[in-house]
């Protein structure tokens, strides 16, 4: 077995015992990227030189017996939405093509402080808006299990690179399912922490009340390790919660006794792919065989999740993205063209407004413009109550559904997606169809609860299927332990895509 096929936890043991150096490990992943990323397109930029330099510095530190951080030389891939000082951070957008942030995101600082090696930046839907990574302004990413299909999104590159053994650990973001859905479609593990568990400082904002950073990895154990590094209160993010970070990686292997899992009946039946239904039902049976009690619960407002999300998220996005004005940073249109148009059409629109409009129409892609338009409309005079206020009220009802459910059960178990990975281009002309991809995942963001996706089977054509567990706020420790119980009893997470 080659070194990159081992789990991060196994690699960490080899690093700590001195059988492996961080430079060897980093080089092995760089070689794999070189070999297969031409087919996958997971990385926007591979930072070969700086990765090897960081790895060498960590090896040096180890040689002097200085204490090492928790990642101790493990490579990590970073979604291109997390600010990294003086290094391009594009957010998958032309708008930020030449942007080099003047500061680091807190999670980037934390990975560095934990002696992680940053391998490169992964592809994503522009400003994290999408479910297929097809909205990236730069490239598409292919699903490693079938390169004619999408990897999911918006953290498509983050999931695909783990799935194709190009990184042992990967950081993504999840606003409506953007970690869990690609993890499910690419056959890896992805966790969306409770809102407030991980600092969002330096995360380029899409919808601030929903965005959360989280880990992706091949196994639950590795996911626990990375979450332990990412989590924690940060004075630079007032929405990060002052709660101690449990030692997830130390407790993850302890099974939970008297586990009660809730099943939502309306997650099944009409609308879900029968092979996914079968795989998820089998996973529920695995839990029963492990001693879990299954209860049927009602989430009466779950069907309103997508409608609520597609009001709240665009409203927040239209406000957040107002900062891209062509003046402070990012793309700006050609001034000569603005002047020429001004002379030509004789309307009373002044040069500054023209500059804004032309800059934003050229710098943003179609989906981002659609969300800005929806948000602007829903927040405009006369519509605010009917749309935004209404959605905030339904959001409360959805949260109350969760609160009631967690009175009765420890976790909610169900599917991540209704369908396996779809073909490239299949949904690009139908925004509503793309939005419905997040049917089972958005409610966790609206309510602010934690959720994890883990491999639970394959379709007859060999595409991965994901299982979702959701837990009450700040119950990640239990969530990981429950997920690990399943992974210890099954081997879906050990299968690998065949890339030539």
């Amino acid at each position, binding site marked *: 077995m080659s070194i990159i096929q081992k789990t991060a936890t196994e690699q960490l043991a080899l690093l700590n015992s001195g059988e492996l150096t961080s430079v060897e490990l980093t080089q092995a992943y760089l070689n794999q990227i070189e070999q297969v990323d031409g087919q996958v397109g997971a990385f926007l930029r591979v930072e070969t030189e700086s990765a090897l330099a960081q790895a060498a510095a960590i090896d040096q530190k180890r040689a002097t017996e200085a204490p090492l951080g928790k990642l101790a030389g493990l490579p990590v891939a970073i979604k291109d939405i997390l600010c990294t000082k003086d290094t391009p951070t594009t957010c998958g957008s032309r708008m930020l093509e030449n942007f080099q942030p*003047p500061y680091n995101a807190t999670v980037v600082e934390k990975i560095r402080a934990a002696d992680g090696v940053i391998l490169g930046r992964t592809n994503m839907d522009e400003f994290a808006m999408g479910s297929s990574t097809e909205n990236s302004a730069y490239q598409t990413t292919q699903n490693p299990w079938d390169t004619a299909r999408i990897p999911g999104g918006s953290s498509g590159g983050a999931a695909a690179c783990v799935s194709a053994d190009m990184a042992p650990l990967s950081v993504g973001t999840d606003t409506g399912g953007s970690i869990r859905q690609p993890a499910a479609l690419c056959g890896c593990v992805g966790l969306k922490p409770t809102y407030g568990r991980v600092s969002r400082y330096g995360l380029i904002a899409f919808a601030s009340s929903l965005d959360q950073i989280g880990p992706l990895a091949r196994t639950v154990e590795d996911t626990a390790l990375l979450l332990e590094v990412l989590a924690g209160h940060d004075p630079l993010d007032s929405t990060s919660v002052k709660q101690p970070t449990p030692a997830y990686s130390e407790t993850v292997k302890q099974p939970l006794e008297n586990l009660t899992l809730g099943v939502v009946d309306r997650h099944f039946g009409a609308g879900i792919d029968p092979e996914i239904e079968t795989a998820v039902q089998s996973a529920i049976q695995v839990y029963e065989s492990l001693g879990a009690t299954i209860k049927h619960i009602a989430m009466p407002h779950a069907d309103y999740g997508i409608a609520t999300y597609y009001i709240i998220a665009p409203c927040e996005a239209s406000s957040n993205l*107002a900062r891209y004005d062509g003046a402070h940073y990012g793309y700006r249109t050609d001034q000569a063209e603005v002047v020429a148009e001004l002379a030509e059409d004789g309307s009373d629109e002044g040069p*500054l407004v023209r500059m804004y409009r032309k800059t934003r129409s050229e710098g943003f892609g179609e989906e981002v413009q659609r969300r*800005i*338009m929806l948000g602007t409309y829903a927040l405009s005079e006369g519509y605010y109550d009917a*749309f935004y206020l209404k959605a905030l009220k*339904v959001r409360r009802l959805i949260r109350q559904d969760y609160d009631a459910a967690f009175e009765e059960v420890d976790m909610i178990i169900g599917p991540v997606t209704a369908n396996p990975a779809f073909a490239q281009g299949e949904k690009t002309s139908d925004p509503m169809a793309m939005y419905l991809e997040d049917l089972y995942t958005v409610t966790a963001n609206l309510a602010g609860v934690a959720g994890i996706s883990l491999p639970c089977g394959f379709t007859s054509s060999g595409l991965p299927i994901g299982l979702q567990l959701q837990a009450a706020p700040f119950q990640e420790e239990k969530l990981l332990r429950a997920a690990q119980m399943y992974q210890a009893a099954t081997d879906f997470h050990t299968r690998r895509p065949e890339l030539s």
Partner: protein
Amino acid sequence: MSLTRQDVEKVALLARLKFNEDGLDKMTDHMVQIIQYVDKLSELDTEDVQPMAHALDIYNALAEDEPRPSLSREDALKNAPKRDEECFRVPAVLGE
């Protein structure tokens, strides 16, 4: 709730975006579809429900009032598309 092409044009100005004729047609079609879908929320009676803007019940997260260094002017200006020594440069806001 109907949404016309003229409405979309007005929203585009508010959003500081601009569409050509085809783009405006397409945006109108898509927005009408999405708004029809989200209108599903009107089925619910929410008369007595408190709106929920945020998942956390945190109020007034205050920092200690201690001065610390902020971004330098040079760092803040570094990514500007157009600048001089101390300012962002933009097209004339007032008439010539």
